[in-house]
Structures are given as C-alpha cells and as structure tokens.
C-alpha cells in the first residue's frame, strides 16, 4: 500500500485519539457521562493495561483467533459449495436462495445460547455462529460473481469443445473470484463479531469471555484493550485477504 493511502486515515485516527485523551484526562468525559473517572479510561491508560496484561490478553486472543479462522473457513467452504450448487441448477437456486436469505434473519444472539446448550462450552458453538453470519456475504457475492460470467465467452468455449466443467473452471470461476474475495473480506470483518457473541453465550476462554469477566469487575480499561485487539484481528484478516486477492486476481 502507498503511504498516501494509509496516511490520511492514520492521521485522523491519531487526531481522534488525541481528542479522546484530552477529554478523558481533563475529566470532561466522566463529568458529562456522570461517571467515576476510572470508568472512562484515556487511550494512554488503555495502552498501559494492554501492555501490562499482554500475557493474559494474548492467550485469550489466540483462542478467539482460532475460532474466527476456523469458523471463517467453514463458512467459506459451505458458502462456495452452496453458490456452485445454485449456479449449477436453477431449480436448486430457486429452492435454496430464500433459505439462505432467511438464515441471515436468524438473530445470532438468540441462537447462540441454544447452540451452547447443544454443543457445550467448547469451540463448536462459536464455529457455528461465526459460520452462520459469514456464510451469507460469501454465498451472495460468490453467486453474483458466477453470474457475472460473460455468456458469450461461455458459448465460445462450448463451441471450442469445452465440457460444462471446463466452462466452469476456465470462465465462470475466474469471473467469480473478485466477488468471492469481496464476500470473504466482509465475512472476515463480521466473523469477529460472531466470535464475541459466541463467547458471551458461554465460554471459558477468549477475548469475549475476558470482556465479560472485566465487565463484572468494572475493568473498563481492559475491556477497551480487548476491543482494540479484536479490531486488530479484523483488520489483519481483512488486509491478508486483500493481499491474497492481489496475488490471485492479477488481471484486474
């Protein structure tokens, strides 16, 4: 990435943090909210706690990261398979598409406790929740991408002896790749939210779990530290997927 691209948002972030620092340090924020000042930490205090408790935070972050990556991969595999199936048959698409849309209307916060009852406190309920919310953007974008394939190019391939599978591999799939990456990037961002909901419903580890503990003890600064780490995870995944896209979709 060019310096010019990341410099403006970086400066803006810095300015906002500076304002926050001033507002918190001067007691302005706590007064306005009518709170004790320890409940309204300044960025510097958050950074301090992040450094002091780095062992604890990193350990929990690892758990959450594993959940996110595994849930994301599960969603990617399922989402792509469903998109391919929809593309292969109009009947399947018409039958299945409303269900895919409906899956998105399921309130994750509501099903999360049920999944915990069914699958316990381990990684599975988190995986399923993450997959549930990642599945939609991946499927929809992959399907759009597949449908964007040039009809004339596909006919040309048929005329040049291509089987249905060869048309898929050489025309439809490459056409769909930009869409698939778009879906994956959106999914990476929401996967973090899924992981936290999953852990809130019942967990023994993870950043979401840590936030619940800290919440009970009014440790606002460390809750913010967890939020920072969660954001960093989301940004990291987003950037990684973007890099992968650049390597694979070189013709753009």
């Amino acid at each position, binding site marked *: 990435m060019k310096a010019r691209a990341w410099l403006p948002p970086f400066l803006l972030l810095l300015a906002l943090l500076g304002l926050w620092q001033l507002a918190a340090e001067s007691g302005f924020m706590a007064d306005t909210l009518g709170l004790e000042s320890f409940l309204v930490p300044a960025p510097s205090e958050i950074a301090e706690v992040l450094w002091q408790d780095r062992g604890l935070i990193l350990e929990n972050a690892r758990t959450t990261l594993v959940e996110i990556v595994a849930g994301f991969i599960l969603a990617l595999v399922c989402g792509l398979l469903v998109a391919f199936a929809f593309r292969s048959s109009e009947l399947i698409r018409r039958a299945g598409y409303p269900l895919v849309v409906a899956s998105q209307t399921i309130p994750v916060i509501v099903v999360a406790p049920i999944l915990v009852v069914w699958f316990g406190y381990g990684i599975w309920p988190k995986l399923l929740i993450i997959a549930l919310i990642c599945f939609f953007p991946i499927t929809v974008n992959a399907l759009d991408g597949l449908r964007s394939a040039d009809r004339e190019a596909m006919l*040309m391939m048929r005329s*040049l*002896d291509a089987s249905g599978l060869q048309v898929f591999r*050489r025309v439809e799939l490459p056409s769909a790749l930009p869409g698939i990456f778009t879906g994956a990037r959106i999914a990476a961002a929401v996967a973090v939210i899924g992981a936290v909901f999953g852990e809130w419903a019942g967990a023994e580890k993870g950043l979401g779990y840590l936030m619940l503990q800290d919440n009970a003890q009014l440790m606002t600064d460390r809750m913010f530290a967890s939020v920072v780490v969660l954001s960093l995870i989301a940004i990291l995944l987003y950037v990684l997927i973007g890099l992968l896209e650049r390597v694979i979709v070189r013709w753009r």
Partner: protein
Amino acid sequence: MTAVTARGLSHSFGSLEVLDGIGFEIGPGEVLALAGPSGCGKSTVLEITGGLLEPSGGSIEVSGRSAGSERLASCAWMPQRDCLLPWYSALDNAGLSLRNQMRSRSESRAIATESFEHFGLSGFEQARPSELSGGMRQRVAFIRTLVSGKPVLLLDEPFAALDAITRAELQEWLAPVLAETGATVLLVTHDVEEAIYLADRVLVLSPRPGRITAGLDGARGAAGDRTEVVSSRSFNQRREEVLDLLGPGVDHT
C-alpha cells in the same frame, strides 16, 4: 457433399421474428459471406449453424448431420466480440480449444506458439489480452478458433470493431490464411467490401425478419493485392449491386 445445408430456417425470440425462411448451401472449403443490415439476424444464423441455438423452424445440417451436438462438434464459432479471457495470456487464449480437448498444457502451448509464429504474432505469446491492440486481439481470437481443427469456421463480424486501416490489413491477412487451411467458412459481416473481398459467394439479407434477397459471386482468389482487387471494375460493380440491394440505411463505407 455440402459442408453446410440450411433449408427454410426461421427463428423467433419470443414474439420477435428474426429469421424468415433462410436457405443456403456451403461446399467444402468454400467461403460464404452473409451481408445484411444490423439486427437482421446474421449472428442468429451463425449460432444456429454452430449448434449453440436451435431454430424455431426449418432444418440445418453440418457435415451431413443435423443434431445440435453434432453441429457443435463440427463448427468453431468466433463471436462478434473477441471474448479473450483476461486471466490467460494471449498464447493460452489461443490454445483454449486444445486444453478443452484434453491436450496437455505444454502441447497446447507448442501448437499455439507455432500458429503465433506462422500468423505474425511472435513476441506476444505472454502478453495479457489487455496489452494487445484491437487488431492483435482479433488475430488471437481467430487463431483460437482455427487451432480447434474443426472443419467449419463461423466468423461473426471478425473485424467490425477495428478502424478502417486495421480492418483492411486484417482482411489481407485473413485471405491467404483461409486459403491455406482449406476450412469451410461462414462469414457474417455488414461490411460489403469485406464480404466480396473474402468470400466465394455473398448472400444478402433483408432487414429483420431476415430473408435472403440475392446471391452473387465474391472476389475470393482474384489476382493482385487487396487495393488492386478492391478498386477493380468488376469489384466495384458488385459492390454497387449489393449496396443497392441493401438499400438505404446501410453504411456505405
């Protein structure tokens, strides 16, 4: 035996009547041009011939067979747009049919490389389609069609998107290539000069719904270079004839 026989072909897209009783024959190795105004159904004739579309009425045979899958197997279709795939190099685009025919990648590349050398594209093997000029893209698309080894080539306005100079250049390039390959060709164009210059015979279509209004001899194989052929008296007579048949509303370029 004729290579292609069409009898009473008609076609409608929904309520839109596009073709109305088209009949023609193409002998083996012959180049037949279909000239007609925009939207008269020329592309539709090609798609039907190539087994990509079934006609609403009439019959079509390619190499003596009428089933869609058999027409598909005998014809190689070059669409109106070049349809080069941006994720492949120029060479791999040209070799697509070979890969589809399950030849190995190296073998396909070797065959395509040979064609590139033979047809004046050397040095552009690794170029991405976006890096090629319009004329080169059309040549790659033509080679892609040719290397499929099919007996019948269906060319849909292969040079329509090009500027006049490049178009003339490519017509001059294509004439000997077609002679050398001996393929049977159905060429669609709305460029009257192109039709007469490249074809053995020219059929003129009416506006939609397309029907054949006349047939006349092309100038294929005439002695001399393109400029000579195109400016000869007999060529100009035929051009006037076709333009009259096409009537007003056709570009007289």
